[in-house]
């Protein structure tokens, strides 16, 4: 029992280090700039009303405003009216820090658009990967044809090439085709998943031939067999592959950074966060951490809900 305590102690220390940046990220996303600077307020901050300086600056009363508002404040001189107006503006511009940070995250930059782009890109990558890989995997596992060994050898060779490593020539080719700064550029290099082919082939090898022969007896074409017989049997493997693929591409920063330059409409979430950081003058820690929290949350929540599946999916590459 005493040994168990020691183990827990070590593991808890490790857990604190692992969780520290998550704690800080979420905590800062709730706090006001002053609290962040001074390092106070615990986890949630005190959530005292704060005044948004930009909001006040935008609504600075000018001469016309003062003239217009004179009737509301009878018997006051210009300075009096101005200070009354300022007080009104400040009241209108005061806001809870947590609300401030998260609204800024969505209004300073088109964060929703970035998230949507992230979804579009990851989902299209996954669907195309399946459409390309599944028939090939079926042919390699279940059909006899001249050249099959050569094709499989090519698959094994291509497993050696990480797509990130050949990013530069891919970028040149896409630039030559005039495809940089398009959705196509974000998706195309990932459409072929050699790993997906390999994985599905290994899985299909375990599917009994009788199942396929029965389908052929029923007059199904090979093409129909792939989608109506093999696909349903492969759902567990596909799910693991989906998690593997989606996590990798939602989090990918390197490739989008290369092919998308400047066009905010195409930014994926990590690029959006990077842009946010570049723009910030340093006082924007709160909204930036709110953005980071928003980007990280979907996968973390999905992971916590379906832990076992996620761990299987991510470590899928361990099945080689």
């Amino acid at each position, binding site marked *: 029992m005493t040994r168990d305590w020691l183990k827990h102690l070590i593991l808890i220390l490790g857990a604190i280090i692992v969780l520290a940046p998550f704690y*800080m990220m979420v905590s800062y996303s709730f706090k006001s700039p002053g609290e962040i*600077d001074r390092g106070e307020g615990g986890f949630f901050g005190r959530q005292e009303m704060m005044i948004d300086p930009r909001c006040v600056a935008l609504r600075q009363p000018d001469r016309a405003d003062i003239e217009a508002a004179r009737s509301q404040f009878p018997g006051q001189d210009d300075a009096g009216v101005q200070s009354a107006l300022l007080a009104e503006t400040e009241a209108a511009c005061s806001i809870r820090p947590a609300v401030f940070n998260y609204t800024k995250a969505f209004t300073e930059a088109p964060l929703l658009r970035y998230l949507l782009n992230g979804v579009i890109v990851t989902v299209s990558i996954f669907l195309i990967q399946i459409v390309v890989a599944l028939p090939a995997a079926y042919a390699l596992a279940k059909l006899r044809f001249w050249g099959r060994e050569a094709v499989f050898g090519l698959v094994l060779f291509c497993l050696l090439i990480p797509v990130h490593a050949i990013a*530069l020539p891919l970028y040149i080719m896409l630039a030559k085709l005039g495809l940089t700064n398009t959705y196509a550029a974000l998706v195309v290099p990932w459409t072929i998943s050699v790993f997906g082919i390999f994985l599905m082939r290994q899985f299909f090898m375990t599917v009994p031939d009788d199942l396929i022969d029965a389908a052929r007896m029923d007059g199904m074409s090979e093409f129909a067999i792939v989608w109506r017989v093999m696909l349903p049997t492969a759902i567990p493997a596909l799910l693991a592959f989906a998690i593997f693929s989606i996590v990798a591409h939602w989090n990918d*920063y390197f490739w989008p950074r290369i092919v998308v330059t400047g066009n905010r409409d195409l930014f994926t979430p990590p690029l959006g966060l990077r842009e946010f950081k570049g723009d910030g003058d340093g006082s924007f820690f709160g909204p930036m951490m709110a953005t980071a929290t928003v980007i990280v949350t979907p996968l973390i929540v999905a992971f916590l809900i379906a832990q076992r599946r996620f761990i299987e999916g991510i470590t899928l590459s361990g099945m080689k």
Partner: protein
Amino acid sequence: MAVIDTRAVAHAKPETRQARTAWGLTAPALALMVLILLVPVFVAGVLSFSNYSLGNPGFDWVGAQNYERLFTRSTYEKMFIATFTYVVTVVPISVGLGLGAAMLVHSLGRIGDIYKTIYFLPVMATLLAMAIAWEFMLHPTIGMVNRTLAMACGTWAEAISFFKSGCADGFPLWLGDRDYAIWVVCFIGIWQGFGFNMVLYLAGLTSVHRELYHAAEVDGAKSAWERFRLVTWPALGPTTVFVVTISCIRAFQVFDTIEAFWPQGGGPNKSAYVMMFAIFEKGVQQNLIGIGSAITMLFLIFVMFLTLIQRWLVERRVHYG
């Protein structure tokens, strides 16, 4: 003639038809494999002998000049040093921590699962976002790390020279200090990756047979260390080969943290100028495609070499049992 013909067709028909559909089914994958994976390797190989730039009408062949530069200029010397420092630091430590955590978690049974969940979180999280979080943590004045360190000031900890100088002249700048920069990046790499290794080792540990431990005990392996050395470690051989290879490949590809911390130049005095960042900076930002391609080729050679070693080890059946 006609008779032979029909017989041949009737005989060969299902075979050829199957072959034709098979090629039809593999054709898209095959075409994409060639276009997206093989052609670029070839393109990089060819361009690495040129001084090509995007937008220029022509280019010259420069022979091995790009490669010569890689091995003579001090910038690239720093690149190799940074890359290898990172790989050589991150791989053993993250594999070791992964194994250690897996053994501890495994021995705790079901309660250990909570640690598994926690340690796996960094693997799931967007690395770029977490890099920015770490940057705040390491902020010289308002960061949590230096604030925590400063709490030790005025206590017995000041006896340690690190705290003594830190309390007197301020704690390190971390990311701005060329003595610390690469190590901080290594630390974040380990922080992010060891949970992945832990999960792979946990899968490996569940497949070690209990009887082996009993047998080892009968043979006189009394201490925990002996049992580890004689049973656990050999049984985990295949897992270790895989974990080390994938950690190496991932470590070679480090980019997000470097670009997030130092968008220009790869760290103070280029101390964290790793290969991926060099490819990005030279090839994409500065449009020096020849030199970028040369780095790409070297990179591919390293990675392929590592994977081939792994396959060779696996084929030799690493587990000795």
